[in-house]
């Protein structure tokens, strides 16, 4: 019994994945649970696991290909099992993936005349349902034809595929061979045989129809440009970048955001930090750990900020799950510290470090980066004193933490040098009002400026 290896939704938000590396070859024996490949999702590089025993009979995706969730990537079956029908269905389901056999290779967008420029690279994700608008061609004379929007074959909508009563008889063996050879997608062919079966004449009709259609620009092959020649380089979007783009674009537009900035005195926090360091390296605690713990405790007392916008209502959470933004090579990811209010400072310190490491190695599981009630972003280590962060919907707010810096401040009428840290909270006005936010920041101040309270 063949096992279909499909692109699984490895996270709730995942819509497509990019196959980074095959770990098994065609012909390798595998058992249920063996790792077949590494797949890059919107958040991390995940392992694709075999869900059946057998031999990897066929690999249907290439390294570097991005495929929508549900795409057939490989087939595990007995060594002599007939997998033609499964392969044929896969051939049918594949959309205009670059390099697919038999695809009519329409004119790729020709490079504009002049210079060492190359046509704008389109990522392999061009075929994904997450359709990106076509980047505008550089205005360079009449030579360059306008490329089609990626992922949208510019043909008249094909007839809806017939579902035969008995799925196994959807197409005759001969029809499948013809279709595979001529690059016809079985899923789009209407069957005229018994029970809606696709038979030879249906493929012949489809071939004739395809020949009659004007040739369209197929999605150009993926180009990864690392050279530094020319006026610019285009970097293809990684999954993370796409996810960031999408999610945060969803934030600023619809979310009525306002910003509250407060400056905290870090004197006592600084002392606490130094004191821990003196005890030993095992007890090291960072400013960020202190901030996270303080935020968690403050949120526990302010459920109206520890909240989500649910569209038709607001949800105040009783548990506190704080996401901490971690910069990774490709962008940003936010692992979550669950029930942070109930964890000790050292727990949080340890966990934060572990999660950051995992994040940088792209090894976070979906469970580890979803489910936050509130987010904290810290750019202090990069010498930012103040910034505004973008809310992660449906969260109600996000705290942007700047660096700790020595500054002259006025205390009791005198100018003194104190260590100060600015935070800016972005708030969704549908959930949090100015006063509400301000009151939360007051609570936060009390905890950060009196960090001994965090030990209680």
């Amino acid at each position, binding site marked *: 019994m063949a096992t279909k290896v499909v692109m699984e939704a490895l996270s709730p938000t995942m819509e497509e994945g990019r196959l980074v590396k095959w770990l098994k070859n065609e012909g390798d024996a595998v058992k249920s649970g063996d790792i077949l490949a590494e797949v890059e999702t919107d958040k991390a590089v995940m392992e694709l696991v075999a869900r059946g025993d057998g031999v990897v009979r066929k690999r249907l995706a290439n390294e570097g290909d991005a495929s929508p969730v549900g795409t057939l990537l490989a087939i595990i079956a007995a060594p002599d099992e007939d997998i033609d029908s499964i392969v044929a269905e896969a051939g049918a389901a594949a959309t205009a993936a670059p390099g697919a056999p038999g695809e009519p290779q329409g004119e790729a967008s020709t490079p504009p005349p002049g210079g060492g420029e190359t046509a704008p690279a389109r990522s392999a994700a061009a075929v994904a349902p997450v359709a990106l608008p076509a980047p505008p061609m550089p205005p360079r004379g009449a030579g360059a034809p306008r490329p089609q929007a990626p992922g949208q074959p510019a043909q008249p909508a094909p007839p809806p595929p017939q579902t035969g009563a008995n799925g196994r008889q959807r197409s*005759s*063996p*001969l029809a499948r*061979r*013809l279709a595979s*050879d001529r690059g016809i997608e079985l899923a789009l062919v209407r069957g005229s045989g*018994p029970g809606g079966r696709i038979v030879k004449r249906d493929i012949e009709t489809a071939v004739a129809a395809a020949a009659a259609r004007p040739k369209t620009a197929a999605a150009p092959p993926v180009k990864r440009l690392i050279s530094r020649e020319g006026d610019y380089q285009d970097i293809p979007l990684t999954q993370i970048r796409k996810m960031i783009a999408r999610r945060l674009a969803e934030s600023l537009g619809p979310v009525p955001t306002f910003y509250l900035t407060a400056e905290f005195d870090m004197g006592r926090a600084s002392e606490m930090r130094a004191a821990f360091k003196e005890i030993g390296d095992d007890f090291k605690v960072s400013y960020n750990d202190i901030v996270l713990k303080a935020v968690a405790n403050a949120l526990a007392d302010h459920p109206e900020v520890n909240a989500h916008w649910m569209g038709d209502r607001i949800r105040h959470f009783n548990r506190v799950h704080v996401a901490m933004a971690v910069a990774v090579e490709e962008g940003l990811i936010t692992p979550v510290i669950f029930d942070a209010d109930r964890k000790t400072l050292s727990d949080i310190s340890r966990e934060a470090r572990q999660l950051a490491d995992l994040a940088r190695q792209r090894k976070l599981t979906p469970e580890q980066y979803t489910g936050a009630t509130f987010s904290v972003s810290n750019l202090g280590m990069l010498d930012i004193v103040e910034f505004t962060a973008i809310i992660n919907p449906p969260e109600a707010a996000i705290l942007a933490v700047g660096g700790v810096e020595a500054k002259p401040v006025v205390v009791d009428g005198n100018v003194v040098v104190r260590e100060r840290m600015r935070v800016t909270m972005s708030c969704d006005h549908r959930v949090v009002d100015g006063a509400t936010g301000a009151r939360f920041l007051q609570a936060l101040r009390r905890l950060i400026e009196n960090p001994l309270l965090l030990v209680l």
Partner: protein
Amino acid sequence: MSSYDVIFIGGGPAGYVGAIRAAQLGMSVAVVEREGLGGTCVLWGCIPAKALLESASLASKVRKAADFGISVGETKFDYGVAMKRSRAVATQNSKGVEFLFKKHKIAWIKGTAKLAGKNSVSVKTADGKEEKHDAKKAVVISTGSRVKGLPQAGLELNKKTVISSDEALILESAPKTMAIVGAGAVGCEFADVFSAFGTQVTLIDIAPTILPLEDADCSAELTKSFRKRKIDVVTGAKIGNVKVGAGSVSMTLDAGGKTQTLEVEQVLVAAGRAPNIEDLGLKEAGVQLTDQGFVKINERMETTAKGIYAIGDVAGPPMLAHKGQREGVVLAELLAGDPHVRLMNYGNIPNATYCHPEVASVGLTEQQCKDKKLDYKVGRFPFSASGRARTSGETEGFVKIIRDSKYGEILGAHIIGSHATEILHELVVARANEFTVDEVDLAIHAHPTLSEAVAEACLDSLGKVIHL
């Protein structure tokens, strides 16, 4: 005077099967049949012929019985007795159809019908009465075909010395000498039968081969087998100087540049059958004929007159019982308004010739593939290499598969040998489902069977035959 949904004129395989299907689908049906139910097939064709062939086969086996450890004493071969048995079998089958009619409440109107305008039929019954019957949905012409002579060659049927299959099936004894003019399925079958019963047979055809509609390789193999059995085969022959006497017929045969004179007791003309289109009032009803004289129909078996349909031999070639039967079924389903009707696939009708060795085929011959300029490959497996064939001592013949080079589509399948007409069917099923030669081999064929040769021929066409 009765009213029915459908009236069939003619109760042969097309008519009676169509009637049964129509009755199954809830229509009220009448069949006008002046002779016996089952038509030519049951009474004057398939059934009695196969019964006689069975006798012939037994005769051949008996002649070899000693090899198999059976000593047979003095054996007599009595055609008259064989003939009587064949009549009994034919009658039994006809009674079977009568029983089926009763079961399905189909009315059998015994008489001769004529179209009487506006979907009604007038019948002259056996006792001279005239009746009129209405058909609410359809009148179906299923009058079949009849034997014919070769007047242009001087061979009009006289039922004595120049006979047709009708007479041959009721001869009291096998003649000493016989010329069979026409080496299609009928001619070859009778050549086999009479030869088995001691007749010196000369099988003649104007075409370059016997069984001219079959693949040339099969024709050649059968010719070889016939000649071994002392059946004289003369092909590419022009008949001349026919002299019909009281107890014999003489003629000259021009073939291959040579002329020979032939004198025989009887000449059996088996050069085709004529569609029964006379005295039906077709012209008045607006039913047109084709150039060949058949009733003109479209793929839904409609004639050029509304409400009138035609199926079976009268509606055109191939003049095969199973073709008529299937047309009857399809027509009944069309009349019942079945949305899932599968129309006739004339490209996948099997041909079967039941002489020894049997010849069966479906699809294109190799010559037709050449004429169509198809890119094909041939696979062959001779029965001489078949274990099962050797056990039964029937090692004549082969399985020949013609497949499309690129996709393995089965373009044609041709089998000559013992049980060919039976083992062909897996290939008919394969072609009906667009299986390629690979799918045929996908099925494990039991060993030792003759059917294995079918799978092996498929493998041969792929270059991977095992037992050769």
